[in-house]
Each structure stands twice: as structure tokens, then as C-alpha cells.
């Protein structure tokens, strides 16, 4: 039975479901126990599963992500929570040199079925070291999968898929998504990793996005529709492996591509979306140069207005779509 719950509750429900189904699943991270996690995602879980399965760690991201890597190599199913995605810098060796490569280096023997859950993104006034969107880093690392669901439904279904997955999956949440509500079935279900979803159909322009930005794009799409422009919205849901086929299908219909991402523009994952479209056959389906709406190439500032200034907004998406449509066909300005 679907009922409306928050994104936070959906993530929690997936973890609880997986832990009830499988003794080998455990959650490890800073303040995930009685505190319930910095954003309350694991609230109530230690009471059900005990301190051996909902494990409070010292502030040691490299240590416990390394430990989870080893436990996963032994066949367990760890979920490591990184309190703010910025802190993932502490465990880059564990993720990039160990978890991502073990299987390959060992010639296909061994797997690291670990999930690393972490909230990214700005908009909370937390400034430069608590607001970044660093997910593109991991898109760049073969051996890792990167998931960034935007709705409670996808959060639950993708987290269950991530826990099932024999590979290491980076699971990006967003602080501003936690309180968003949506319909979520009570029963267990999976949303496949690597499948984008067209969340709004339209024939005038394709807007590709993921995570919190999906909601900004939907807002923009509604406003554009009021002005007679029908945007087709593609929510990637998974950044790696990237479902560029879904993007291609849409672009071949609309001939126009806008990517909306929260991370900084330079070498962001949006660049990968654009590249995959323009270097293939679908290049010829484009009748405008693609555009990106992304974070400015700066650290996230503290002041509310400054922060808003550097982030994508629905207004910026609307502007980008309008200028793209205004551009003369064949003139790539």
C-alpha cells in the first residue's frame, strides 16, 4: 500500500527492511545510534537492531569505511554513512584505491558489496566544507556505482538495489530532500540501478537532471509550460552507470538538451551527459547547442544571498531553456 512518507523515512525503511531480511547487513557511521544520525535518518534503528548492527563509530571515516570494505570482501553487506559528503575526502583511499579496484586487481575474484550513504549539496547555509556536491569524482572511478535519487520512492527502491548490488555503491542523498514527501509502497521493491526515468513528457526541450535539482527542474518545467514550452524531464537517478540511452531517446525527440546539476560546472557530471550525446549519432538530432545549468566554479559561500547566487535555481533553469530556444537554429552562440 503506498502512503506518503518523507525521503528520510524512505531511506530508513529501506535500511530496516534490508536488515530484517539479512543478518549480514549493518549500518556504521558517526552518531547513527541513539542520536539517530546527524539528519535523523537512522532514528530508532539502534533500538531494534542493537549496537552491533547500528554501529556508532569514532570520527574515523577512513578507518570505518576501510573496515566496511574488508567486511564486504568477506561477504557482509555494510552500509557506511558519511555524515556530510564533504567528509568523504577522508576516505578517498578506501573508496578509490581499495573498494573500487579490489575486484579488478584480483582478476575478478572477490567483490565489495558496500553501500556508502551520504548527504551532499548546498542550500543550508553550512558554507564551503559542508555543502559540496562531489559526486562527479566517483563517476570518474571505474568500479564504483553512483546513485542519486530524487524522490522517496526512488530512494527506497534504489537503496534496496544498492544493498543487493555486489559492487560498491555511493548513495547520494541531499539535506534538502530529507523532508520532502512522496508516495512509497510499504512493501519491499527495487528500482534498478542504471535506469533513468522520464518524469515529465514534453516535445520542446530535454532537461536532464538528478537529485534535488530534479525538483527545481520540475518547478521550472511547470512555469515553462505555462508559457507554452513543453520540457521533457529526464531524472537520471543513477549517475554511474549512466543511462545515456534514455537521454538520447529524449533528445532525438526534442532536438534540444539542457543539463541541470548542482555540482560545479567544470568537469561536472553534466559534462559527461553532454559529451555522450554530442559524440554519438544523436549529435545530428540536436538543433541547438546543448546548455548546462550548474553550480558556479566557486566554493559554497555562507551568506544566504551569496549561496543562492552560485547555486542553480528554477529561475536559472527557465532562463537557460528560454535562451536556448531563442537561439537561432544552427548558430551555436
Amino acid at each position, binding site marked *: 500500500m503506498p502512503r506518503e512518507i518523507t525521503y528520510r523515512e524512505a531511506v530508513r525503511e529501506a535500511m530496516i527492511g534490508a536488515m530484517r531480511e539479512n543478518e549480514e547487513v549493518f549500518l556504521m557511521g558517526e552518531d547513527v545510534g541513539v542520536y539517530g544520525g546527524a539528519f535523523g535518518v537512522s532514528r530508532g534503528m539502534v533500538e531494534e537492531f542493537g549496537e552491533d548492527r547500528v554501529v556508532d563509530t569514532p570520527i574515523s571515516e577512513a*578507518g570505518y569505511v576501510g573496515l566496511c570494505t574488508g567486511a564486504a570482501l568477506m561477504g557482509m553487506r555494510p552500509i557506511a554513512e558519511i555524515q556530510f559528503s564533504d567528509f568523504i575526502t577522508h576516505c578517498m583511499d578506501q573508496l578509490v584505491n581499495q573498494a573500487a579496484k579490489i575486484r579488478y586487481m*584480483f582478476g575478478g575474484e572477490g567483490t565489495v558489496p558496500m553501500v556508502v550513504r551520504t548527504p551532499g549539496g548546498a542550500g543550508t547555509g553550512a558554507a564551503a566544507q559542508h555543502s559540496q556536491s562531489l559526486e562527479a569524482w566517483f563517476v570518474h572511478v571505474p568500479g564504483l556505482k553512483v546513485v542519486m535519487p530524487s524522490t522517496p520512492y526512488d530512494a527506497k527502491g534504489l537503496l534496496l538495489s544498492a544493498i543487493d548490488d555486489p559492487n560498491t555503491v555511493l548513495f547520494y542523498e541531499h539535506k534538502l530532500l530529507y523532508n520532502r514527501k512522496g508516495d512509497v509502497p510499504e512493501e519491499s521493491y527495487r528500482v534498478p540501478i542504471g535506469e533513468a526515468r522520464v518524469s515529465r513528457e514534453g516535445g520542446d526541450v530535454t532537461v536532464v537532471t538528478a537529485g534535488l535539482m530534479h525538483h527545481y527542474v520540475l518547478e521550472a518545467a511547470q512555469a515553462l509550460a505555462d508559457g507554452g514550452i513543453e520540457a521533457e524531464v529526464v531524472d537520471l537517478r543513477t549517475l554511474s552507470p549512466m543511462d545515456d540511452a534514455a537521454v538520447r531517446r529524449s533528445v532525438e525527440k526534442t532536438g534540444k538538451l539542457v543539463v541541470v546539476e548542482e555540482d560545479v560546472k567544470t568537469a561536472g557530471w553534466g559534462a559527461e551527459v553532454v559529451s555522450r550525446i554530442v559524440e554519438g549519432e544523436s549529435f545530428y538530432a540536436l538543433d541547438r547547442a546543448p546548455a548546462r545549468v550548474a553550480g558556479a566554479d566557486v566554493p559554497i559561500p555562507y551568506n544566504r544571498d551569496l549561496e543562492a547566487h552560485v547555486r542553480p535555481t528554477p529561475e536559472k533553469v527557465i532562463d537557460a531553456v528560454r535562451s536556448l530556444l531563442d537561439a537561432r537554429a544552427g548558430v551555436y552562440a
Partner: protein
Amino acid sequence: MQDDNDRVELLRQMLLSRYFDEKVNDLYAEGKVHGTAHFYVGQESVAVGAIAALKEGDVITSTHRGHGHAVAFGLDVDRMAAELLGQATGYCHGKGGSMHIADVGAGMLGANGIVGGSMGIACGAAWAFKRRGQDHAALCFFGEGATNEGIFHETLNLAAIWKLPVIFVCENNQYGMSMSVKKATAIENISDRAPAYGMPGVTVAGSDLDEVYKATLEALERARAGEGPTLLEAITYRYLGHSKSDANLYRTREEIQTWRKRDPIQRFATVLEGEGVLEEEGWSKLDEEARERIEEAFEKASREPDPEPASALEDVYA
């Protein structure tokens, strides 16, 4: 406790380890091997002594200087040689080379190209044993160079607070590449750090196989009894350079010679002769057989097939 046959077997493993690395060193000199390797020559008694204390089902993690650990853990020298030569039949099908030899199913959780890189993995294996209620332990090898990495601090602390069945075996071979341990730390022994984590710290003469064995056994008993980890430091020395490209500019010939005189293999052979376990003849035979076994492994490996180029794109994801 080991019987006579076991003790001869330990000597044999040390010889295999030594000849394996000497052979690889020669092959590099002849330009017949690709890439690089780090040699364990001089340290054999640490791996062999410590691993001899393990039981079936225990696991190890290794380092960039890992051939000796692999041999001592019982990995097949044929498949190791094939991996060094990049062949399809090597442990990693030519994808790992010297620094990534592993046999996860057997409990050899991998050599590791990153200093300190396997310390988290060892703790994770120990975590799995503890959670599953298994009477096993993880033996985590690393050099003294790793002890100044952050991961050393984090993993020793985690292992101590959760009383994980892991033995941290620090092979203090005196140099992190060219950096002398005397310059790199301000303490006498690496094991002096153990009390800071709330675990026992022990320093042993790494060239004395029996001492390494006994200290590991004691640490394993504590681990299996739920008493948690131990930091076990084995004082040792690598005779050869850090890797194949090392010109040994940071140490003297005399220093190397001094250590060579305390050779762990000679030392253990003398012990076995004293015990009457090994006759002079037995020794030469063992020595000759080990040398031949390694020659045979590399000879065989040289005839193995190269991997298919397309296999480079496989095994990224399960």
C-alpha cells in the same frame, strides 16, 4: 606446536620465498619483467613465523612487499610466477602483478599497493569473524612506514575499542623507501604506540622465526579469547632496495652486510640442525629443491598464455 616435519616445511617456505624474489630480481635485471616489484629478501622469517601460527579459516592482508606473505600462506608459486610475468594463468590473470596477488577464497585478502591500504580490510575481516561468532583472526602485515599514515591510527583505535580479532604485524625493516625509521619517528619501538590504543605491544627479533611464531601465537590466543588486537613489531631488514630502481644511496654496504650476517634462513637452519631435525645433507637437498621449484615455476610461467586483450575490459564490476 610444530612437529619436525612442520619445522622443515617452515624452512622450505623461507627458501621458496627467498628464491622467488631473487629470481624476480634477476628477471628485472635482464629486462624480462614488466613494471616493478618490492623484494622480501631478508624478512622471510616474519611472514613464515607469523603465518605458521594461524589456523584454517584465518586470513591475512599483505603489502606491496607481499611475495613472502603469499608463499607463507601457501599460495601456488606457479600462479604467482605467472602473475609476475603477466600471464592469463596468474592469480590476477595478469591484471594485478606483483602488488595485487590475492586469493580471497583461501583467505589471502591481497597484497596492496598503498602503504597502510590493507589495514581497514583486515579490521573488516576481523569484524566479520566477530559478528558471525567465528573463532578466526586476521593477520595484518604492514611496514613501519605505514605507522605514520592516518589509517594506522584509525584502524588501531577501532580494533581496540571493538576488541577485534586482528593482529597488527609491523615489519620494521628500518626504511620507508629511503626514510630511516630513526628519522621518521621519535620513539624507540613502534610497539611503544600500542598502549596509546589500549592494546598490548610486543617487539620481537624478526630474524628469529620461533620468536615471531610464539609472539603471534600469544596474540592470536588473546584475539580468539575476545581480548582484542595486538601490535606486534618484528625488527627486520630488507637486503635489497625498496624496489628494483633503488640505488641504496641512503644506507651503507656495511650496514647491509651486518644484517646479512643475521640471516633468518641461516639462523633457523642452524636451529633445526641443533634440534637434530635437519642434517647437513637434508639442508643442501632442501635448498636445491627450493631453488629448482622456483626455476620450474618461472620456466612454466614463461610458457603460459598472455591474457586476451579484451579481458582488460572485464571484471570492473561484478
